[in-house]
């Protein structure tokens, strides 16, 4: 009883305070004081900068530094047009197509492989211990850098675009299944219950209750990953996994600037186009 009156008094006092017209100054003083938090953030960042800057020393440019910088700039503005528009096996268009092929297959296999992982790792479907074990597994896949995966797969497949595809299939599992899991856990189970009440078979429940909810976000995730994989495929070439990266590295190391320029132009145009297309498709998917 006493508690009740207390509560009543409290609500009354709050209501009274809310009714009372506050002046601007009073409002200003009632603002939460966040400067302590900001000061804390600034201090932490400052300490971190100090700590990390202690070991990173600027040792000046190398003897050939300016030459390299000038060379790259010169190459970008005077690209080797024969290479840029040629049709041979070592020309830019072919290498770009190969990079796209790697990304397409890598994303596709990754997206398919990620589906079982995602269902096994979502807490709404599997018991918690099993789900967490699979989550750790997914995290492990994600932490190993793609270059390391490529170097391991190269022992299986030998160098070439084939290695790039297998590497990307495995690497993509990590991120794709992480995003699939969120989609699965957001599933509206009420729809399944109503389908149940209508007497649907399990197959019908999946076809009309689960798939329509998941496909849009799954496709959106896959396209997003394709975007990332394409950028990744350009660097995989560095370890010999096909694509445009290998040739770009060689040209950089042997200082053939005009060729470097041609590769960089090809790369930029390709990535820009794919990024634009993927953003557009994903926006359409999100709107339904």
């Amino acid at each position: 009883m006493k508690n009740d009156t207390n509560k009543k008094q409290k609500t009354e006092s709050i209501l009274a305070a809310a009714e009372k017209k506050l002046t601007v100054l009073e409002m200003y003083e009632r603002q939460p004081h966040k400067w302590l938090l900001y000061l804390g953030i600034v201090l932490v960042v400052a300490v971190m900068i100090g700590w990390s800057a202690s070991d990173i020393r600027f040792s000046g440019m190398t003897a050939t530094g300016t030459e390299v910088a000038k060379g790259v700039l010169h190459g970008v503005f005077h690209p080797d047009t024969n290479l840029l528009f040629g049709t041979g096996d070592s020309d830019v268009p072919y290498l770009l197509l190969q990079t796209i092929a790697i990304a397409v297959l890598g994303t596709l296999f990754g997206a398919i492989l990620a589906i079982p992982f995602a269902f096994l790792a979502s807490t709404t479907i599997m018991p918690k211990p099993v789900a967490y074990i699979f989550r750790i597994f997914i995290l492990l896949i994600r932490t190993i850098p793609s270059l390391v995966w490529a170097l391991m797969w190269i022992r299986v497949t030998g160098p070439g675009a084939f290695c790039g595809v297998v590497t990307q299939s495995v690497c993509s599992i990590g991120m794709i299944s992480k995003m699939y899991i969120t989609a699965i856990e957001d599933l509206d189970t009420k729809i399944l219950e109503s389908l149940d009440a209508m007497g649907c078979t399990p197959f019908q429940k999946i076809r009309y209750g689960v798939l329509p909810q998941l496909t849009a976000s799954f496709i959106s995730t896959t396209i997003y990953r394709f975007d990332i994989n394409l950028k990744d495929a350009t660097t995989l070439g560095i370890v010999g996994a096909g694509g445009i990266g290998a040739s770009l590295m060689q040209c950089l190391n042997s200082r053939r600037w005009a060729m470097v320029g041609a590769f960089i132009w090809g790369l930029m145009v390709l990535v820009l186009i794919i990024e634009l297309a993927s953003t557009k498709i994903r926006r359409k998917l999100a709107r339904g």
Partner: protein
Amino acid sequence: MSEEYKAPKAKVKLFDRIFKPQVITIANGHTTVRPRSRMPLIIIVMVLVIAWALKMTNFSFATVFSRINELFVILGKIFHPKWSFFGKVISPLIDTIKMSILGTVIGCALALPFAVLASSNIIHNRVVVSVIRFILALIRTVPTLIIALVCALIFSLGTFAGTLAIAIFTFGVVAKMLYESIETIDMGPFEAMEALGANKFQSFWSACIPQILPVYLSHSLYCFEMNVRASAILGYVGAGGLGITINERIGWRDYNGLGMVLLALFVVVVAIEFFSEYLRKKLS
């Protein structure tokens, strides 16, 4: 397509002109149209693209299945890390973390002004906005490893080149995420401040910055997470950090040592991810 064909008032897609929509007569006599499903076309295109890609990359399932044990031999060794190697991992690991911290801070600090310049609700000059967005897009297209290699060629091998590469990458990514978020903020307070007689900077400072700041910090933390992962391989092109050790271990085929390096990286990445996720949850 004949010239006489006049498109109806609504814009008709090319697809619907070729495959005429199905006309359905409803029971009450009205007719309605139902466009043909695009699914068959999409499936045909996908199958063709996949077939082309399989041919282009010489992909063969047979090779994967027959030689997959090679991978498991390596993975088996990686999962038996050589603990004695831990001492040699610490110093490059700390280098990697330092590189990513400094790179992230520099990149994020540079990103803020450019993100503001690239958001169309604050800068009304369309030319400035699109030029800056285009530059940001260009920066994002160049892979980090290539930036790192160029930096390493210019500024000698070592952590400085790596830091610079991370800073450039962070700049591109954070600026893009930030201008997208700035465009969704509530401009009401800004207009109110202007109506009260504050100048543009004052109103931006007290009306927009409090809205932007949490988002900015959260994007920066997210980018830091990515950078720790990314900077681990920058050493591969000589830009300092863990990558040098990874490269060396693989070169020597010392997969047990590699396992130790990866384990250390895993622990650090997981710790940072948890910490940053916790902070980002608090920020939102």
